[in-house]
């Protein structure tokens, strides 16, 4: 067993006993880690209540070679996730980030860029920045980093350029836009305005300056949310638990 140091975001906590927790952590250095934190529910001790949902902390943990859970021995809080008064959209956005990270990443598959994106998104949500935009940015960034971003300019079937004007067919099963020829006979095809696809491309861009300048009108945001709800459900193979709560993102 070797002791490792890592920066982590707490994705899930489950009470294990009177004083212990089983935690799922997204670490920058090692990816997702499931671990037992003995005594983490005590006020005093090496955890100081740091292992709360969505908290950013520095942890020390022991890696187990067998199938059993790793052991967190120490946690120091760097930033607690605490939204401002009345900001339920930010809170549910944060929960959604945790759900997607937990469901879409594998244990010990590190993605530092994804960790940084999640960290930035959680900080922005806690600060009260526009939750709907930051959540969309996170979803598209996550899909890009994991190689699951839908094709937004070329037909997902034949690879031809799809004209970005008017309404464009988007095939959930095919993983992106479809040209008029390939659309015929396809199932689970949505009709999307070209402006929505342009917004998606900009939000998915790795360059921060591109999406930060972006102004998304309410109608585009609504269409984009609907499209992402369907696409994320398709990628996950189930509807995300937080999906019904995402309507709060617009009520900020």
């Amino acid at each position: 067993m070797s002791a490792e140091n890592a920066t982590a975001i707490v994705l899930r906590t489950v009470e294990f006993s009177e004083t212990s927790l089983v935690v799922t952590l997204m670490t920058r250095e090692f990816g997702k880690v499931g671990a037992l934190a003995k005594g983490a529910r005590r006020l005093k001790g090496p955890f100081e209540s740091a292992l709360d949902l969505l908290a950013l902390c520095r942890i020390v943990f022991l890696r187990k070679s067998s199938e059993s859970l790793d052991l967190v021995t120490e946690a120091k809080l760097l930033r607690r996730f605490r939204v401002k008064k009345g900001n339920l959209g930010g809170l549910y956005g944060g929960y959604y980030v945790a759900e997607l990270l937990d469901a879409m990443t594998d244990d010990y598959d590190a993605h530092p860029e994804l960790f940084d994106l999640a960290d930035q998104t959680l900080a922005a949500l806690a600060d009260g920045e526009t939750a709907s935009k930051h959540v969309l940015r996170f979803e598209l960034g996550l899909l890009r980093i994991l190689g699951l971003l839908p094709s937004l300019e070329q037909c997902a079937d034949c690879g031809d350029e799809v004209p970005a004007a008017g309404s464009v067919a988007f095939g959930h099963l095919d993983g992106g836009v479809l040209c008029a020829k390939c659309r015929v006979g396809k199932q689970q095809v949505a009709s999307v305005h070209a402006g929505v696809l342009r917004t998606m491309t900009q939000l998915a861009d790795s360059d921060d300056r591109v999406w930060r300048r972006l102004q998304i009108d309410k109608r585009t945001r609504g269409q984009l949310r609907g499209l992402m709800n369907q696409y994320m459900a398709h990628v996950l193979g189930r509807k995300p638990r937080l999906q019904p709560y995402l309507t709060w993102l617009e009520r900020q």
Partner: protein
Amino acid sequence: MAEITQAVTDLVDQFAKLPGIGKKSAERLTYHILHVHKSEALALAEAIRNVKENVRYCKSCYNLAEQELCGLCRDPGRQQDVICVVEQPRDLMALEQTGMYRGLYHVLLGRIAPLEGIGPDQLTIDALVNRVRAGGVEEVIMATNPTVEGDGTALYISSLLAETPVKITRLARGITSGSVLEYANKEMLSDALTGRQTF
């Protein structure tokens, strides 16, 4: 290894289902039961039966009760215009032990935890909102746990009560009495500064 008797094995299995009790502890408790006087063991069984048959949730505040209303709700000496909202009956007991609070309670029987599939509908939030809307309440104290989910639950309830004229407060947080500032962490100090009071 041969079984001792089926009855003993059954009791060990039942004890082992309790929280915090492992196989070894379950065996110790079983041997203890075997050694104590019959009346003492049967008193334990009777107490368990009694709890399961007679204890229910108070119709008004959802605290544990043996009648339709719990002792706190029936007590005319309690301040009727303040409701303290807690997650579980054990939180209520902790607050009662301070002897500092003389108002009423409302037990949510959990907290909103969307990641675990627990939504507002599975708690007693509607009953709380109805109690407040029925009138006679001046203040609602949010005493949910100071965690993300506890705070989130308080935030959700306060959004539902925003249209009522009721004052909504949250338990204070910050530095512990008897400690020194030098050793308080950054978060404690910032909470204490944010929640500072007129001296």
